């Protein structure tokens, strides 16, 4: 099932491919959606963390006596109060002397803190006021230790160890062909160094949740999360069977990868287990910016060997990422960087060396694009420079090198679906037309394109699967149950559309029960642009099974051949006429045919991941696209205005074109924010970015309309031939914006964010194209 490519003729689609308002939209717009922090229980307590104020220290004394005496305080917990205070992550492909590397971290630090903001104590109180007072009263004495603030410093000989055993967390290598020979034969070599910054997800909903024991003694945690399967991790921490913890994900106020790791879950569970009362925890924006994992800062060195006609002969790439203080998903993120490092191009030979190191910076982990996006700045800047040096059209150079079906990535994976990269290049350039004129003297305009590829679906080595259950009610209305967390991308709504399409059910009569680890079939994480592929295919399979069960029952009853029957909005049609759906459902009951079905979709399989990456298949498939940016630069102030922004991706099939446009526009703006504005600023391990007044995400004034052009090859591995689109559009803005600035001022910014100061440095170095 898993390798089949599904396409449908467009004129046969009734609900899928329609720009429908999402089924969750009305409640959100009415203001009646209850997010994780909106629920309150009678007798509910409040919880807050006491965090380290320094980045690196030994804890010499922790005293909670005074805090416990604050009126209204119910409990103050330390690491010693946690049943299993240490959790460990297996880091795939990485070994220590014997066996897999297990990266450990504590829920509440007992002996040592490794980053500014690391949790030390958990305070639980009747009121927010008591909470605030008690947190102040927790006494922590510490002895400061050396601070490792850069990966290079971390990896230096004899460096202070952030973790015992050394600061190297993970490394990956890809070797394909004879790189040295290719460089010897090359007509030209392009060299570049590129640096990206720590970025925060900055969803509008800070981390929050409410937890309670239900009447069966099951720990219930209703939390803003992308992963309800963390119930297993919570069970481990509490020392109870997995079946005794339930995680419920209501509609989430934005995720972008920042709610992929646990946030409030373990602390809520500990507080409830300890007090046996309902507890709410709401992180402040300051805590969210301070202590939740960030996007990796990457240092990337590219050497590109090319022929005179623009063909890329080889890439020689080094990537060093800052893993921060704890492992989280850094090793996997770096693996994505490695596999995506050469972009959507055929590369004769490649040598890729990637390393991630522990530092005393905040932990880094998942963020939309997951390591596959920082490298776009590298490979697309190189591509642009190549075009410039050869006096070739930037679109033409990309088209000459573009991957096609049947080509292999440097890692060895074959591209098995049609690649419409050239079509996306043509689409954005046709739309863009003439380049704009500067709006005045001392202003310069620039235009650039940037293409990318981004995997959708998890690493195949993870043996991914998802399940969905669909059942008719006796009145013909439809219930879909699937534990998919809905983080705002329409994850639940898409399932309703798929079920509606296959079963001819009215969208208004479909209810999707989602995001509940106990009552719904598990669908895995809403991460890795995987839910349409995974839960979408699971729902599709369940719907097809259910349809065939009902048609089979009608065929048996009426004697008409199965192939002559169809399920339509009017009922079950056959050569003999129409059987109403409700009659058909009663008929199923009579004939012992179930009117529900469980579909399980298994992702593609692949070889094991080792440090030396090599395999026929590491990811299910990829999504390709191209963006175009027009910018104007104020040559005196360095201010950059994005005049126009056009984005095109082949999405295979748009299940809901409005949702697709929304994903592309939102990701493009988030990417523009990383290109121009955003940075978590660290100074010797101290996080200086404490609020939204310092962490600038794009406002409505900072960005133009994002013009989206959606191409549909029908070639994706998702239902109806859909590809994933959640992450792919966030990569190109980094390069489209920096290359457009380079086009305007004649010198290339290579460090993000491209602040006015950095633009002015380029203005000084460059030759202005538009200056009279």
């Amino acid at each position, binding site marked *: 099932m898993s390798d089949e490519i599904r396409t449908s003729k467009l004129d046969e689609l009734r609900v899928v491919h329609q720009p429908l308002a999402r089924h969750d*939209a009305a409640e959100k717009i009415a*203001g009646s959606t209850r997010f994780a922090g909106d629920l309150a229980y009678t007798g509910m307590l409040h919880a807050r963390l006491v965090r380290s104020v320094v980045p690196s220290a030994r804890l010499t004394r922790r005293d909670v006596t005074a805090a416990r005496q604050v009126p209204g305080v119910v409990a103050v917990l330390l690491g010693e109060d946690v049943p299993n205070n240490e959790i460990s992550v297996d880091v795939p492909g990485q070994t220590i002397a014997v066996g897999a590397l297990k990266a450990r971290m504590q829920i509440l630090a007992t002996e040592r803190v490794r980053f500014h903001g690391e949790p030390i104590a958990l305070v639980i109180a009747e009121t927010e006021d008591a909470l605030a007072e008690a947190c102040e009263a927790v006494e922590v004495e510490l002895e400061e230790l050396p601070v490792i603030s850069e990966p290079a410093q971390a990896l230096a000989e004899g460096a202070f160890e952030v973790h015992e055993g050394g600061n190297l967390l993970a490394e990956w290598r890809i070797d394909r062909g004879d790189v040295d020979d290719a460089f010897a034969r090359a007509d030209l070599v392009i060299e570049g160094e590129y640096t990206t910054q720590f970025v925060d997800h900055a969803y*509008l909903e800070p981390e929050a949740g409410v937890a309670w024991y239900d009447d069966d003694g099951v720990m219930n945690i209703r939390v803003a999360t992308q992963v309800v399967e963390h119930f297993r991790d919570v069970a481990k921490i509490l020392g109870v069977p997995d079946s005794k913890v339930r995680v419920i994900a209501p509609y989430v106020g934005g995720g972008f990868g920042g709610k992929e790791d646990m946030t409030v879950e373990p602390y809520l569970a500990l507080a409830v287990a300890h007090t046996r009362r309902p507890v709410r925890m709401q992180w402040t924006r*300051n805590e969210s910016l301070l202590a939740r994992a960030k996007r990796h800062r990457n240092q990337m060195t590219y050497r590109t060997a090319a022929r005179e006609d623009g063909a890329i002969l080889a890439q020689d790439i080094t990537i060093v990422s800052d893993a921060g203080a704890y492992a989280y998903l850094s090793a996997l993120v770096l693996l994505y960087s490695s596999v995506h490092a050469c972009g959507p191009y055929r590369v004769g030979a490649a040598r890729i060396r990637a390393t991630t190191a522990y530092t005393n910076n905040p932990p880094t982990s998942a963020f939309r694009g997951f390591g596959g996006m920082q490298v776009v700045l590298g490979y697309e800047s190189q591509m642009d420079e190549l075009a410039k040096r050869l006096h070739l059209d930037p679109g033409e150079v990309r088209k000459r090198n573009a991957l096609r079906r049947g080509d292999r990535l440097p890692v060895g994976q074959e591209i098995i679906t049609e690649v419409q990269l050239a079509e996306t290049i043509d689409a954005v350039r046709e739309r863009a037309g003439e380049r704009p004129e500067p709006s005045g003297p001392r202003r310069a305009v620039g235009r650039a394109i940037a293409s990318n590829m981004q995997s959708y679906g998890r690493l195949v080595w993870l043996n991914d699967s998802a399940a969905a259950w669909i059942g008719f009610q006796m009145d013909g209305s439809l219930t879909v149950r699937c534990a998919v967390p809905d983080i705002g991308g329409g994850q639940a709504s898409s399932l309703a559309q798929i079920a509606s399409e296959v079963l001819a059910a009215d969208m208004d009569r479909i209810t999707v029960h989602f995001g509940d680890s106990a009552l719904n079939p598990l669908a895995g994480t809403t991460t890795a642009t995987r839910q349409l592929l995974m839960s979408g295919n699971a729902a599709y399979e369940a719907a097809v099974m259910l349809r065939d069960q009902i048609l089979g029952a009608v065929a048996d009853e009426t004697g008409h051949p199965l192939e002559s029957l169809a399920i339509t909005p009017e009922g079950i049609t056959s050569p003999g006429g129409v059987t109403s759906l409700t009659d058909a459902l009663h008929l199923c009951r009579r004939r012992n045919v179930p009117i529900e079905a469980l579909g399980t979709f298994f992702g593609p399989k692949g070889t094991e991941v080792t440090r030396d990456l090599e395999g026929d298949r590491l990811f299910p498939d990829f999504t390709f696209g191209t963006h175009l940016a027009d910018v104007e630069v104020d040559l005196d102030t360095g201010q950059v205005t994005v005049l126009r922004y056009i984005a095109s991706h082949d999405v295979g099939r748009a299940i809901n074109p409005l949702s697709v446009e929304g994903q592309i526009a939102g990701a*493009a703006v988030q990417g523009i924010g990383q290109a121009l504005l955003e940075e978590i600023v660290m100074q010797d391990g101290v996080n200086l970015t404490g609020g*939204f007044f310092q962490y600038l995400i794009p406002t409505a004034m900072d960005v133009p309309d994002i013009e989206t052009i959606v191409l549909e090859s029908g070639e994706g591995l998702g239902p109806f031939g859909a590809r994933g689109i959640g992450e792919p559009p966030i990569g190109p803005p980094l390069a489209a914006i920096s290359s457009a600035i380079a086009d305007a001022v004649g010198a290339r910014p290579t460090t993000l964010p491209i602040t006015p100061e950095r633009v002015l440095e380029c203005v000084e170095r460059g030759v202005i194209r538009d200056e009279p």
Partner: protein
Amino acid sequence: MSTIERRDLATTTLTVNGRRVTREAGGHMTLLRWLRDEAGVVDPKYGCGEGVCGACTVLVDGEPASACIVLAAQCEGAEVTTAAGLTGDDGALSSLQESFHRHHAAQCGFCTPGMLMCASAMLADGRSRSRDEIREELHGNLCRCTGYQHIVDAIEDAQGARR
């Protein structure tokens, strides 16, 4: 039951979405906390606590305000409208809300109640705004999902319908 210390047991009375509500409000209690924790009106959201993100935007006597940086006691006697107050008693969406619905202006929906109140204030003065002017007035309301343009589309359309 452990002892709960309450300071400043003063009460504040506000008219919230047409309903008169009297609840305790310590001298330091923000309007946002009063609405959410005391009055049970949870559609204004906590996003930053420093008046930057706009997720808590409500109308106080018709004027948009960030409820996280206004004290409840300061608003004594005021009429407060939140996004839920735009919805009719029968659950029917207002024309502004309908426009948000039509234009797919909510993705995760967390910024939406604040966006709606900022937009309501814009529509209230009867002036028609260009897209750039709409964007300028939305600058105090952050959205991380949509890239803003479906929200701008919805407001532009709603002001057209109003004319």
